[in-house]
């Protein structure tokens, strides 16, 4: 049946309202504070170490992001943890809270479609995430310029920017997941816990699960080199089902320009290779599947949430 009128009328209004709510909520302020403190801590420690090697490394700026100094993990490792938390915090109660506040039916009685509500909420979450991450990114680069005393090169800026895009896509996946749970679960607490459970699964247990599952799916035959290769391939495929793996690989290739492949590389493949950093475009080509995968996961999850929301009864 054809519906008349734009499905997106009002999406902008919803987005601006939600954006305002997100940016002024206590929840987000606390999380932003947490991110900036941990980020600044990690980066400051790293910079102390990097200052000794400034002259030797052509990509010293990218090292700010990736260098870990005991006991602190690197800045990107921090982000790998914190981005999902922020995204979940932004999304877990976005739809069910409208029901719980009993504003949903009044809202939908305005001349808008449900589509506008969901799009507006998702875009507002994504915009909040983008604003926070961009601010953090600029903050880190600024700190780097101040403490290292030299500006980043063009290639470094490009790579850093691509990393920012990958980080936003990674956040988008978790935001879409949280939004989905906020549609499916009427209780905000259940939605939050479910989203955190998925996050725990991928952040901590996925590698264990992969090493558990791989020998079952493809048992390696110790006398057959090809079967060992096959098993390793399966393990890599499985681990890439996790958005954390995809983000980690994207980060690695973008911020370590010498990365030229993931997974097993045979000695014959390396024959004649020059150990030099890849040009930016080649690094992007390398992680294109990873970033596409993240964006696809984000769209896929949003679509499921969208269908579930369209089928939901309005009455509480």
């Amino acid at each position, binding site marked *: 049946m054809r*519906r*008349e009128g734009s499905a997106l*009328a009002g999406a902008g209004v919803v987005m601006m309202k939600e954006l305002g709510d997100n940016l002024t909520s206590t929840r987000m302020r606390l999380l932003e504070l947490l991110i900036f403190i941990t980020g600044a801590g990690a980066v400051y420690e790293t910079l102390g170490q990097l200052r000794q090697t400034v002259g030797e490394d052509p990509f010293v700026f990218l090292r700010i992001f990736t260098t870990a100094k005991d006991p602190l993990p690197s800045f990107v490792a921090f982000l790998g943890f914190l981005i999902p938390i922020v995204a979940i915090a932004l999304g877990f109660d976005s739809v069910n809270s409208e029901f719980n506040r*009993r504003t949903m039916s*009044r809202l939908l*009685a305005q*001349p808008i*479609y449900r589509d506008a509500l969901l799009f507006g909420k998702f875009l507002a979450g994504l915009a909040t995430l983008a604003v926070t991450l961009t601010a953090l990114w600029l903050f880190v680069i600024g700190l780097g310029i101040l403490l290292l005393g030299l500006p980043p090169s063009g290639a470094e800026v490009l790579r850093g920017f691509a990393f920012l895009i990958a980080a936003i896509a990674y956040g988008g996946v978790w935001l879409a997941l949280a939004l989905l749970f906020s549609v499916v679960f009427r209780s905000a607490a259940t939605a939050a816990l479910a989203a955190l459970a998925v996050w725990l699964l991928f952040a901590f247990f996925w590698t264990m699960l992969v090493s558990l599952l791989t020998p079952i799916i493809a048992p390696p035959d110790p006398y057959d080199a090809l079967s060992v290769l096959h098993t390793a391939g399966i393990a890599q495929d499985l681990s890439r089902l996790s958005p954390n793996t995809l983000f980690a690989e994207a980060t690695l290739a973008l911020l370590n320009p010498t990365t030229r492949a993931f997974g097993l590389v045979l000695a014959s493949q390396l024959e004649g290779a020059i150990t030099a950093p890849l040009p930016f475009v080649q690094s992007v080509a390398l992680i294109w599947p990873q970033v596409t995968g993240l964006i696809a996961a984000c769209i896929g999850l949003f679509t499921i949430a969208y269908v579930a929301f369209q089928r939901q009864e*309005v009455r509480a």
Partner: protein
Amino acid sequence: MNEAVIRAEALTKRYGPALAVDRLDLSIERGEVFGLLGPNGSGKTTTILMLLGLTEPSSGRAMVEGFDPLRKPLEVKRRVGYMPDSVGFYENLSGAANLSYSAALAGLRDANARIAAALARVHLEAAAEKPVRAYSRGMKQRLAIAEILMKRASVAILDEPTGGLDPQSTREFLELIRSLQSDGMTILLSSHLLDLVQSVCDRVALFHRGRIGLTGRVEDLTRDVLGGSHVIHVEARGGGLATAIGRIEGVASVTPTANGFRVEAAQDVRAAIARAVVEAGGELMSIEAGHASLDDVYVRYFEGVRDAA
């Protein structure tokens, strides 16, 4: 001129095997206050959601202001104001801010002037800038009416508008509904408090298990269903009064109450009752004709339906 603003034809809604609304026919004219009355779970809210296009009917069709809510929900929602059952607002925002969000969603121009006028109309101008968190139940309900006024809706659909209100607020709220009607607004309201809303409704439909049992003006329904009977409340003391009253011609039943009797009769037999009580040596304290209420109609009618089934 009689123009149907809301029309439903064989509107049906199924939730799995359960029938929430069963082949409902309805026609509401411009300027009318129409009451959907019935107990909780009898299909009133589902009917309202179908009229607004917020729920898809399983079969049948509806027309609101000449638009099909299924195909042109935006046109319908532009013209219809809706106040849901136990309406909610964003508690952290002020009343005015809540309305300006709705106004933005509806794409209204000159929203601020409209909001100010609407809030003044429902006597909320003093609380306009306070967060809704600080509003009482009655104030929230009036804010919902202000939202409808702000939209300049030609039809207002109010679901349980007096739910949870104290008697004073209820009276004020019913006054507000009457004043909306005098502005020419068509009003559809649902309630399970039959007595309360019978005073404001021009016509009512009595719901029972997803079907409309009776439709019509309150007086007509009372006359048709209760057979034009009179209910008389007698307050009297003394022995053997029940038998004495029961002997009066035209009396159908005598039921003892706390301090007297409730008498049902075919005509007004107050004088005869007074005589009978005095002759039987009883003390007559008061005697008055009671109004037949919709509650009586509802109970009587659906008892009949159940007996027939």
